[in-house]
Structures are given as C-alpha cells and as structure tokens.
C-alpha cells in the first residue's frame, strides 16, 4: 500500500464521513460545515487524480460560493442555534433502507461491469491550456457554443434571482 | 531618542560559571512576557479617561512599553484601567466586565474617584466610594486627574508587581451594590 493509496482512503473516508454527518446532524449550521468538509474531501480527490483545475473550481465555487450562500441563508431563515426537530423513526428507517438498498444495487451493478480502463497509458491530467483551447474552439468538438451558453445561463439565473429576491423586498 | 532602558529578556541563555549554560525559569519568562504586554481594556468613564487618552497620545506614548493595544473586548484585555468615577449603576457593569476578562487580569484604579470616590465621596447618593468595593484593585494612583506620567508610573508599578508574579488576595466585598438589574 503506497502513500498515495493511503491518502486516497483518508480523503474518501473524510468526504463520506462528513457527508454522512451533514445529512444526519440536527444542528443546521453544523450540517453546512460538514457539507463543506465533504466538498473539500471531494476536491481533494480531484487533486489526488491530478485534476488541479477541477480542484480549484470545486473549491472556488463550492467553498467560496455555494456554502457561503447556504450559510447566509441559514442566518436569514433559521433560529440557527436550535436543534432541528427529530426525524420520525419510521421515515428515517425507510429512507435509510431505501438508500442502502439503492447503494447496494448500484454497487453490484457497477462492481462487475467491465469498464475499459486504460490505466497507465496517460497521466490523465487536463492541462489548463488544453481546456482553454478546447473551450474556445468553434469547430466540431469545440466547446465555444456551450461556453457562450453558460453566460446566458448565468445571466438568466441572475435575473431570476433578482426578480425573486426583490419580490419580497418590495412587499 | 535611543532606548535607554532596554528590558532584558529573561529567557536568554546565560553563561554559568561552570562553563555550562543556564536558562531562566519559566516563571520569569512568563512574568516578563505578561508585564511587557499589558493590553488595557478601553474603559474610561469620565474626566480621567481624557488623561488616559493623553497617555496613549504621541507625547507620552504608552506604546513604548507595549501597552498600546487597547482592546474593546474584555476577552482580550489584560488590565482594566478604571479611569473615572464608578457610580452605582455602573458597578454591576464593571463587575461583569472584570468577570468576563480572561485570566490573568489586573486592575488599575486611576484617579481619586476610582480610588476612593474622591471628589464625590461626601454627600453623594450614587457614587461608589472606591472601585475596590466592586472589583479587586492592584494599583491605585492618586490625583484628579493623575498626569499622564502618573499613569505611566502606575503601569510601571503594575509591571513590577506582575514580574514578581504578583498574586493579589481577593478583597472581600460587601455586595450592597449588587442590585439585580432588569
């Protein structure tokens, strides 16, 4: 077992454990923080796979953006210091069983599926220059169109947010 | 404007006569650190507070001794300089501030009012006759108001006490002022 394997295990355990805590803790603020750690764990996995760019994107958007926003919305909407009400036993049981079953099913499917793994042929990195080139490429396989579409998506998201948010401000 | 009186760091390594080395004790080092880094709480109630500000100002400059890091929150402060009169309504607040400070903590009573009620000792119905009825005081400095130099002197006196590991006995206080506040 090499050091890198150990790190993989640590990272994935970190991500999964924090993810689990995030959905089970009864303090909503803590849930956000555990979610944050889980996301950082995933980001670590990206880094482990040498996708530095994706790592950075993940951290910037999730840690610096989404989680902050979630925390803000917690401040805004919650009596954040209080515990959330207990989840009903039955519902907990049902949800637990369902997701466990789903997990096992999916894992059984995946485990034996012969993916064409091309291990070792390439480092698998994604140099940022290539990403950039491909992103701006207007030819076939180029991502120029999606790239511009993203901006429209963002614009519409922004407009949507503002419309929704201002609705209450006026009221 | 050279440094005429550098305060030697006690933690330094001395040569001992036998040729070996000798390190000052931990207590000395801590005493040295604490005495040279007395961060005051921003607490001034009346006229003496102006003289306290003067002490901080350029002419007297208590930052030379490292006292300039005045903290607004008692959690990070080391010394309360009670600059001004304490009245009955303020007493619980002062007590609370003192209680909320992190240990170790020291108190300087600046001026006649904080020492004893001073100008308002007689015929007043609302003045606490000395801040030590409320919290234990380490150093008293008389004057109304004490000059900035006098406050510096008080701080240096406190330094001495701290450096000796000054442990102050708690003064038992009758708690007439501890009226419940609503």
């Amino acid at each position: 077992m090499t050091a890198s394997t150990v790190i993989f295990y640590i990272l994935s355990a970190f991500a999964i454990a924090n993810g689990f805590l995030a959905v089970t803790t009864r303090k909503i603020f803590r849930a956000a923080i555990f979610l944050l750690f889980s996301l950082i764990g995933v980001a670590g996995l990206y880094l482990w796979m040498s996708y530095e760019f994706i790592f950075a994107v993940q951290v910037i958007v999730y840690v610096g953006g989404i989680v902050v926003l979630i925390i803000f919305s917690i401040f805004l909407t919650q009596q954040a210091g209080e515990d959330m009400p207990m989840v009903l036993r039955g519902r907990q049981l049902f949800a637990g069983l369902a997701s466990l079953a789903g997990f096992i099913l999916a894992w059984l499917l995946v485990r034996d599926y012969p993916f064409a793994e091309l291990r070792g042929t390439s480092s698998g990195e994604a140099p940022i220059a290539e990403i950039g080139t491909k992103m701006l490429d207007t030819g076939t396989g180029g991502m120029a169109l999606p790239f511009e579409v993203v901006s429209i998506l963002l614009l519409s998201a922004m407009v949507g947010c503002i419309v929704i948010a201002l609705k209450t401000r006026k009221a | 404007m050279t440094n005429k009186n550098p305060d030697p760091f006690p933690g330094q390594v001395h040569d001992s006569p036998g040729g070996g080395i000798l390190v000052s004790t931990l207590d000395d080092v801590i005493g040295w650190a604490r005495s040279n880094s007395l961060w005051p709480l921003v607490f001034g109630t009346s006229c003496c507070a102006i003289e306290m500000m003067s002490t901080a100002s350029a002419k007297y400059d208590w930052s030379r001794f490292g006292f300039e890091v005045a903290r607004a929150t008692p959690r990070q402060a080391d010394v309360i300089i009670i600059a001004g009169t304490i009245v009955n309504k303020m007493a619980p607040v002062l007590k609370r501030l003192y209680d909320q400070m992190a240990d170790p903590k020291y108190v300087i009573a600046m001026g006649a009012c904080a020492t004893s009620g001073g100008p308002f000792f007689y015929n007043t119905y609302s003045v606490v006759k000395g801040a030590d009825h409320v919290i234990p005081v380490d150093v008293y400095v008389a004057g109304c108001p004490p000059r900035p130099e006098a406050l510096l002197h008080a701080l240096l006196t406190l330094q001495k006490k701290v450096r000796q590991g000054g442990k102050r006995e708690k003064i038992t206080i009758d708690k007439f002022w501890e009226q419940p506040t609503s």
Partner: protein
Amino acid sequence: MTSEALKTAITALLPEAAFEDGREWLNVRIEAKDWKAFAERLRYQPGLDFDYLFCLTCVDWPAHMDMVYHLTSTVHRHTVVVKAKLEREDPAIDTVCDIWRTAEFHEREVYDLFGVRFNDHPDLRRLLLTDDWKGWPLRKDYEDPVNMIKL
C-alpha cells in the same frame, strides 16, 4: 417683546397668571392644571413663539414643589420663566413633551430625581438611576444611609 409687553400678552392669555419679580426675565406663576393649555398658547401664539425650552427643572421647598420652565423664543428673543406649584405629596403635572421634544428627557429626569409625575408622558421611567431605586434623591428630605456619607 419687552417684559411689559409680555406681561400684557400673558395676562390676556391667562388672567390668573401671577407675576413675580424676576431679576432678568419675567417670572410667571401659574396653576399646575393650566399648564398644558398655557404652554400650547405660549408655543404657537404668533407674537409669542416660545419655541425653545432651554431649561426645565424642579425645586423642592419645604411645603411644596415648584416646576420651573425657562422658555425662550428663537424668533423674538424674549424669555419667560414659568413656575407651577405642585403638591409635595404626589406631585403631578401635564407633560409638554409633545410641544417641546426636549421635554421628554428633562421630564424623565425630574421624575427620576423628584418624583414628579407627568401625565400622559409616553415613557415615564427612571432615567439616571436604576429602575429599582427607592426614593427621590433631590428632595430635601431624602436620606440614604448606605450610599450617602455626610460630611
């Protein structure tokens, strides 16, 4: 307006008003019950325009209490001192804090230190002392053996 002119104007307003010899300013003594209406006239009557209440206090005499209002007009620059006699037991007078906003705090202070009740005051609480303070310290018969050391 001169003192004399003020006198006539005030007599016209409130015939019961008595005048005392003030040193600098006209002193008017009125009944506590007339105060509110009188104050309104003083404030709003053209020619009087006493818009500036610069001092409001109380004096505790052995037999009664005096509310003292110092009024001046920023338009005409004339000043008048109005005094109203109050009972020593349960002193009360109408508030004027809707006429002069500054009165709100001044009246609270007088309430705090003298125990004068101001009818219709929006927020009559102790101002300077703690809420549970006993007694009215600026009254002459106030005793506080704990806090007060007599010289």
